[in-house]
């Protein structure tokens, strides 16, 4: 059974595959492929020319700037959260959306739970790989807070607090 994930607020079957999941066999083109960062770097020209949808994993130590010139080739970026204290992905998400105008799927992978999704969404993430038991809680968690103090990707408010 394909992985379930929360995308744009709905639980859906994942239509992407991590390349490692499938060994080196490149599956049918209907399934998007998510490359490791290293694999992308090692063979950019081939992947650029390949048909089909392409995604890449961004780990906390990778720099968004390294991907920037090639962003238009990607339909998905999966930022990795190795554990509950990892926080670099939040900055990476905002940079991708706000500075580099990335319009594709921005996915949180790794340690992702309902308690993070409110903040992740505000940093531009729209897709979340969650344990099955977290799906229902996570859908509600988008509404944890009904207001916010900062302008951000999802709100676009100016800090001058026009809200008031």
């Amino acid at each position, binding site marked *: 059974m394909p992985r379930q994930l929360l995308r744009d607020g709905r639980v859906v079957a994942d239509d992407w595959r991590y390349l490692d999941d499938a060994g080196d066999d490149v599956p049918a083109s209907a399934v998007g492929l998510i490359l490791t960062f290293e694999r992308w770097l090692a063979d950019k020209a081939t992947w650029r020319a390949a048909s089909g949808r392409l995604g890449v994993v961004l780990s906390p130590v990778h720099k968004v700037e390294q991907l920037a010139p090639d962003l238009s080739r990607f339909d998905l970026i999966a930022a990795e959260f190795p554990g509950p204290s990892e926080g670099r992905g*939040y900055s990476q998400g905002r940079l991708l959306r706000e500075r580099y105008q990335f319009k594709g799927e921005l996915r949180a992978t790794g340690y992702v739970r309902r308690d993070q999704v409110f*903040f992740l969404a505000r940093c531009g993430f729209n897709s979340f790989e969650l344990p099955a038991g977290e799906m229902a809680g996570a859908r509600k968690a988008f509404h944890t807070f009904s207001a916010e103090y900062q302008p951000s990707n999802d709100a676009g408010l*100016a*800090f*001058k607090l026009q809200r008031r």
Partner: protein
Amino acid sequence: MYRYDAMDRTLVDERVAQFRDQTRRFLAGELNEDEFRHLRLRNGLYIQRHAPMLRVAIPYGLLSSAQLRVLGAIARRYDRGYGHFTTRQNIQYNWPKLEDVPDILAELAAVEMHAIQTSGNCIRNTTSDHLAGITPDELEDPRPWCEIIRQWSTFHPEFTYLPRKFKIAVTGAPQDRAASLVHDVGVHIVRGPNGEHGFEILAGGGLGRTPIIGQVVREFLPREHLLSYLEAVLRVYNLEGRRDNLTKARIKILVKSLGIEEFRRRVEAEWELIRDGGLRVDEAEVARMGSFFTPPAYRKLDDIEPASSKDAAFRAWYRYNTAEHKVPGYRAVYVSLKKADVAPGDATDAQMELIADLADAYGFGEVRVTHTQNLLLADVEQEKTFELWRTLQAAGLATPNIGTLTDMICCPGLDFCSLANAGSIDVAKLINERFDDYDYLYDLGELDVKMSGCMNACGHHHVGNIGILGVDKGGEEWYQITIGGAAGADASLGSVIGPSVAKADVPETIARLLAVYVEQRRPDERFLDTVRRLGVKPFKERVYAAPVAA
């Protein structure tokens, strides 16, 4: 003071609901210890030696009398009848039950208080000068800026999982009463080239295992850019700060390893890209925030001289426990939380309620927490100080020692904290017992003693004129002594005088340090300045010349 609007209220209420659900999931076994730890820490809840410890935020140290009454009521109902005021202007409860914490938070929310981001690796409570708005030497009241930072940093989506905790202090006067040079970021209100007000921004200060004085990142920042600049500093830190080693994760280590020039270059480069985005603080917003901190309705009074009273005890108290006020006829009054037999910074429920009543009667209903762990009634009419003193004295809140040796800063130590190596409260007690002669204390003059029970330095020992650090030596509590530290605008780190000393020998060690000072000082020279002039050597020689008599 700042008052919540509907949105602020909604946010704290929603936070209570969120934390109630997180606690329920933990108690139901849906979250394991480690998962819950990451969540509870973002809400000020530690699991301590005896029980959970809950740290409640007091933004920049400002409380209304109604809030202080609720703090007292919480101490009585959920704790053992007292609370502990901290060096970062917060209050800690040492004995709440985990399952009661959501209810405590709900009671706090009802008076516009919370425990949001009082622990964990996020932006903590912004601290400030406890004399803000009333001190004659002030360029501008820093509190509106503190509130602007409080709002920007509350639930900041990008900076909730930083490499380590992050503390900001803001001051608006040349004399630094907020220890801003030992904060992750210090914000100083300064005058710009055309006389306009803006900010000097420092970064990389901190205590703990590796004490470092903050360095200037930017000499002058136009004020509308405060938040975008802070955001740039935080983004560089969030992406570049070390996460592989907890003891090297603070921003001070990043600044140190990059060097201030390279750190500055990165911050400025980031800032250039975001400075004109949505974070600009416009003048209307500055004015709106300023309107919450306008002066109270002072009466037209002349300065009088209450210290000419015949009562010598009152005169001493007035001299040490009150401070100059910029409005004629008024005085700022310290409510001392340093008493020989009480842990520094502790106040009972009854004391909190009494102080709230006194704030209503004498101080426009406001109370402040100082970073030296005392309380302050900021706006007291000089002619009422005598009756106020009598009431405070009866309640054990008038120890006339502000700024002297026994006005010690002290962490909770081994008695409460699971991190501590050694007790600090009982050492404070020993020092109090030894130095109970006020004539001697007053003769010594300004003297800052700070004590921490471990390397984490919650008692700021590195920046004490005399610093005392608890260390574990073969399972016994020993104490390392430093001298020459200072926390103000001329901040410096103390130097270790030599091998650590046993608990019982701490008072005698201090007595020997002070003997050298008394012999060698020049007229009107402070202990700190004598140490700076002479160096550690003569002090060290005296302390270790002979064993301390048993």
